[in-house]
């Protein structure tokens, strides 16, 4: 851990200016990912700009021309967001995804922005003694022929096969969330679906944000579909473990056929993977094990696996089918 300067920002604007001014500066949220990386030597900033005390800790509803949205401040802690009554009732996938992540303690510390911007858990990324293109561009990817049980099956490149580890982000993509960002040029908004990127030939970049862009809020439309959402995570322990795969789903049935459906996968790719082909294949269909499996397979046609990740395809198939059929049953009830 390099010696570093610590500053506590008193406004979002000031935080952005501080990071813009110093190429060595980083935002500090709850610290549960960044402090870990400081110790590992994965991140070596010279200045930390603490944004955890900014007045960005409100959860509130707003009316918009497109309907009501829930606006979640970037500093809202994961535990508080998961427990928020409007999230529990209107955005159950978000609540479930948060509760499936990390541990009770970590959720008390972690912020909404930090959760979105946490970095991959690829073991080589975290081990500075091994080559890793994400950590050190051009050094090579150790996971390609190494330990990859947790790595990607969709959208990976020869430069990086890591996955994004956030559970919350997967749910947010399924819920059409929009992230609000403040940069030196002012505010902009982008769908969470466009926040994370595929590795391509620049795996060092997890997201489409510039390093001095501050996430200030996330906005989630409160729709009927969102209220019928859920999140299902499969992991190597019953708790306190990252996803092998996960599914955020939302479903609206019209009688016996699918009227509208959202399927987003975690543990599958460098970003939450919206399974749009599968969604399209399901609309208008009856919902059963076979139709879901067939729909999932259209999405998985481009999947690439190794010995270590081959299991993810049947796991995605089974977990998606289980999640959707369960959602359909609760729909009936």
């Amino acid at each position, binding site marked *: 851990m390099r010696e570093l*300067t*610590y500053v506590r920002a008193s406004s979002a604007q000031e935080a952005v200016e501080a990071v813009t001014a110093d190429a060595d500066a980083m935002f500090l949220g709850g*610290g549960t990912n960044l402090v870990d990386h400081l110790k590992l030597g994965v991140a070596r900033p010279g200045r930390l700009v603490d944004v955890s005390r900014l007045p960005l800790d409100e959860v509130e509803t707003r009316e918009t021309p497109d309907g009501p949205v829930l606006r979640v401040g970037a500093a809202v802690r994961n535990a508080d967001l998961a427990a928020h009554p409007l999230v529990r009732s209107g955005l159950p996938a978000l609540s479930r995804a948060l509760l499936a992540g990390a541990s009770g303690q970590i959720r008390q510390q972690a912020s909404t922005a930090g959760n979105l911007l946490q970095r991959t858990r690829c073991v080589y990324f975290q081990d500075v003694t091994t080559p890793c293109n994400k950590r050190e561009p051009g050094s090579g990817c150790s996971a390609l022929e190494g330990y990859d049980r947790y790595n990607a099956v969709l959208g990976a490149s020869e430069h990086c096969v890591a996955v994004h580890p956030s559970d919350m982000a997967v749910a947010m993509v399924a819920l059409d969330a929009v992230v609000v960002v403040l940069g030196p040029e002012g505010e902009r908004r982008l769908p969470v679906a466009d926040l994370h990127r595929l590795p391509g030939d620049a795996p060092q970049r997890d997201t489409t944000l510039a390093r001095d862009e501050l996430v200030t809020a996330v906005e989630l439309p409160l729709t009927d579909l969102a209220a019928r959402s859920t999140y299902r995570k499969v992991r190597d322990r019953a708790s*306190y473990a990252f996803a092998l795969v996960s599914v955020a789903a939302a479903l609206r049935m019209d009688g016996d056929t699918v009227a509208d459906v959202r399927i987003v996968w975690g543990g599958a790719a460098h970003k939450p993977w919206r399974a749009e082909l599968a969604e399209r294949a399901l609309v208008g269909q009856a919902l059963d094990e076979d139709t879901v499996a067939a729909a999932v397979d259209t999405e998985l046609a481009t999947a690439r696996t190794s010995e270590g990740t081959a299991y993810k395809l049947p796991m995605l198939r089974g977990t998606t089918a289980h999640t959707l059929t369960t959602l359909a049953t609760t729909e009936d009830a």
Partner: protein
Amino acid sequence: MDATIRLTVDGTAHEVTVDTRTTVLDALRERLGVTTVKKGCDHGQCGSCTVLLDGRRHLTCLTLAVAQDGAEVVTAGGLGEGEGLHPVQQAFLDHDGYQCGYCTPGQVCSAVGMLDEAKQGHPSHVTEDLEGDTDLTDDEIRERMSGNLCRCGAYAGILAAVREAAQA
């Protein structure tokens, strides 16, 4: 870079000079000599370093001390009233909810924080009905205490202890 911060630890106010890189865990253990908080992994992966920080359960290994200037920290050493034990601690004794004792201060702090979360109605991963009441079943306790690993495998005793404390 040094910084001087104020921390209240188990009711005692301290002014302590830390490196900006010092975690709350190392500030407590190495600078203030408070070893009632343990280091099992230093990376947020075990729960041994759990305290109540401003009333919430918190991993001190992933928290920089400079960022917590003015915070109120309660460790297992400060849970009880005076010399007495906190009911959660007594329950750990009564149910042998520990063996080596290294994870134990973190477990008891976590249990106290968790019971408070449950009282506020927080749901958990295993809560069937997100909008229903919080009922601390065995599965709920296990899930909510899963951020605290115990390599001695004292989980059965920990469960019994927390169950008893929850009913008290």
